[in-house]
């Protein structure tokens, strides 16, 4: 009996997508409406889903299947940014949408889910495969996983996988506890911790750029790289998420997960192959190599910030403490800048400046790799002080890679000026880039965990960030310390100035 489909053509066919049911807990929530459903619809639109595909939405609110379909139709129409709404595609997609109401605390709900999944499997031929997506409050992750286990849903006649969203704990101990609880039901290999930054096309392209080309890797070390700046700036404030954000803060919300994963991708050693574990092993190794800081080092190498009110574009913008749901004396960081050092032979002594913040001048995420200057300035005094060579990896918006270097200005004399060589993802491959959620959902269905974070990676990130969190929590900060619409507190500039560096203004 054949075990492999003999009609494969990997050069021309899209990746094989197995039949499955995606079970979404939190099916009427914001994440489902804004991200998951538009991404799944887009996959259907691109014919990327198997014919045997179904979605079972679960939420507390009682709804019929049809009412759920109507809500999801609205969500897809409202939040699909660059996907046309096609009535025919929607009808076929919606035929696989089902709903059941229930509370995660109610064991009976999981029994009903088991029956519902059996019905869906019979009707839609989902092959017994199920992807459980927890788009719910983090405090509900463990109860949901345990409920699935108790109802026998973590095992079946197909594969069973669990997708969880960040935050994966709020410190090292809680992240370990969460993993332990999930592992009581799902083995680590079936737990998919989603970090949507890793699903972005340019973040994946870092691997292609570094390990698909032979010319950059020899330069990718302390001998040629002076320092690295990783910036994730947002121009908006907390946008109604004040009470959640007050508990998290910029360091935990962005640096502990997204930006350390980006840094690990940028700085990791070449993996032996492009398999999930080989790539993740190297990322984890890099994260474990981040130098833990003492309290004194933390005071010198980190800067928290919080935005104050300002007038931007003729409009008054509130400070963080004036946002709804935020304590008027809040000590939460809406800005965080950290100088990390990686203790390995490749990176010893190279500062990795990582910053993120809300209400900064623009929305931009990028990695800037600044190379060392030429060892000798031979072109005279007028050509000193010119900017160093820079490699910019833009993650959003306008995903792409730019190399800035010096060239002779045309005409008499030897005058140098910086020029830019650009690779722009959108223009070099005019094809639309899939959204991070499309990539990651498809990967989870296929069973490719390369772009998902693993328990040891999460723990290594917390090990680097938790000491900073502890010092920050035990310090009374004189917030606000930067005005909305500026590039953060002056102390962050001073942190770089101590090393003779300046922040880029992307």
């Amino acid at each position, binding site marked *: *009996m*054949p*075990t492999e*489909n*003999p*009609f*494969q*053509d990997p*050069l*021309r*066919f*899209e990746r*094989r997508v*197995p*039949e499955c049911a995606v079970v979404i807990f939190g099916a009427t929530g914001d994440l489902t409406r804004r991200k998951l459903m538009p991404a799944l619809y887009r996959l259907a639109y691109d*014919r990327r889903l*198997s*014919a*045997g595909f179904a979605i079972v939405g679960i939420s507390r609110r009682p709804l019929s299947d049809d009412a759920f379909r109507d809500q999801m139709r609205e969500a897809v129409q409202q939040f699909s940014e660059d996907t046309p709404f*096609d009535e*025919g*595609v929607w009808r076929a997609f919606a035929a696989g949408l089902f709903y059941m109401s229930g509370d995660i605390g109610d064991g009976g709900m999981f029994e009903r889910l088991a029956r519902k999944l059996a019905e869906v499997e019979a009707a839609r*031929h989902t*092959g017994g495969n199920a992807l459980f997506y927890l788009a719910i409050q983090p405090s509900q992750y463990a109860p949901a996983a345990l409920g699935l286990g108790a109802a026998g849903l973590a095992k079946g006649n197909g594969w069973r996988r669990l997708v969880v969203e960040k935050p994966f704990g709020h410190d090292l101990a809680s992240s370990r506890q969460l993993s332990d609880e999930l592992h009581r039901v799902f083995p680590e290999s079936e737990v998919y911790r989603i970090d949507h930054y890793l699903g972005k096309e340019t973040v994946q392209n870092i691997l292609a750029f570094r390990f698909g080309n032979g010319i950059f890797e020899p330069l990718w070390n302390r001998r040629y790289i002076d320092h690295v700046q990783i910036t994730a700036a947002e121009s908006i404030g907390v946008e109604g998420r004040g009470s959640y954000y007050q508990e998290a803060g910029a360091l935990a919300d962005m640096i502990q997960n997204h930006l350390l994963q980006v840094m690990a991708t940028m700085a990791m050693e070449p993996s032996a192959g492009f398999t999930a574990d080989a790539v993740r092993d190297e990322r984890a190794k890099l994260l474990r190599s981040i130098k833990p800081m003492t309290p004194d080092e933390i005071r010198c190498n980190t800067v928290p910030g919080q935005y104050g009110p300002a007038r931007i574009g003729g409009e008054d913008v509130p400070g963080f403490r004036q946002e709804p749901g935020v304590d008027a004396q809040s000590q939460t960081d809406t800005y965080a800048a950290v100088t990390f050092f990686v203790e390995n032979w490749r990176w010893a002594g190279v500062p990795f400046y990582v910053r993120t913040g809300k209400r900064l001048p623009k929305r931009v995420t990028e990695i800037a790799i600044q190379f060392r200057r030429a060892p000798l300035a031979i072109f005279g005094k007028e050509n000193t002080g010119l900017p160093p060579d820079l490699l910019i990896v833009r993650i959003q*918006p*306008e995903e792409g890679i730019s190399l800035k270097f010096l060239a002779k200005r045309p005409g008499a004399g030897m005058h140098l000026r910086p020029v*830019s060589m*650009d690779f*722009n993802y*959108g*223009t*070099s*491959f*005019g*094809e639309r880039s899939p959204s991070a959620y499309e990539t990651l959902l498809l990967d989870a269905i296929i069973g490719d965990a390369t772009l998902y974070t693993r328990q040891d990676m999460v723990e290594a990130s917390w090990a680097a960030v938790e000491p900073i969190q502890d010092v920050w929590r035990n310090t009374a900060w004189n917030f606000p310390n930067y005005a909305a619409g500026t590039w953060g507190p002056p102390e962050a500039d001073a942190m770089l100035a101590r090393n003779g560096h300046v922040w880029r203004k992307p």
Partner: protein
Amino acid sequence: MGAALSPEKVLRDLAALWTSMAKQQSRDREAAGEPSAADGVLRACTMTLVVLAEESEDPTALGETIAALMPEHPARAILLRLHPDGPRALSERVYAQCWMPFGQRRQVCCEQVEITASDAALGDLPPLVLPLTVSDLPVILWCRAPRLTGMLEFGAMAGIATRVVVDSSAMPDAARALRLLQDLARNTPVGDLAWTGLTRWRAMLSQVFENRERLARIAGVARLRVAFSGTYETAARYLAAWISDGLRAAGAKPQVTVEPDAQVSTVRVELEGRGLRLALWRDGQRLMAQVDDSSQCTHLPPPGDYILMREELGIDGRDPVFEAALAEAAGLG
């Protein structure tokens, strides 16, 4: 217009084109009060695309197809327009295809060279085209004129390409066309738009066997029939070749029939055997699959040249699945 046309002149014209576009962009920016130093015209190029077409072809439609391909496959496009009659003559013009990617400030441009030649000057084309190709990047030759594939000079043009794309469905004799392609493929990787047009069909059939229960029944397939109408003989042969190859790999020994059928609008595939019955056919804008008692339907308008070439240009080098199907299809009685 004359028999002599210098590649150096074409390259100089191209360089002048880029300079003038950069100056224009700079003037436009200054007029708009924007700084011009950092932004400029972005040149994008991933290949040279040489298009061999009849001069009688609608230039607007062909130009639109090439322009549509550029954002995804930026190329230096060299369009060779041939007319069968007239003295040995060549003429050229250069221009650019530009677009402003959505949401971005910079204009992206690709260059295009158009050369008109008579059949008598066909032999002059390879030495002219070779220096015009972009160094170190693939050269794709897209031959839209079936009559040329049989000419001696075509071999010389194919010789400078890293990949040749033709459309065998436009050739009058399917069996002969497949043998010709097989000969061509011995030296150069080849693509055939008649095969490209079958990707969705093949993907749909493949999807059927992603189901483990159906896969388990595949070895029991005893009969494969591919019926076709009109110009779809090549497509039918390709499908029959590819499917029978896959069936044999799975342990089946099917009886294979490829035959014309007036009842069929394009192609119809039927598989029958122990515990499995499958049919695949086009119904207007839809592709239909009937597997035992269940049916599937997918929206599939007949693909135009743009869609087919878009897929072909995404393939570098050899396509082993196609080459195996070509060899098998050329040998079908």
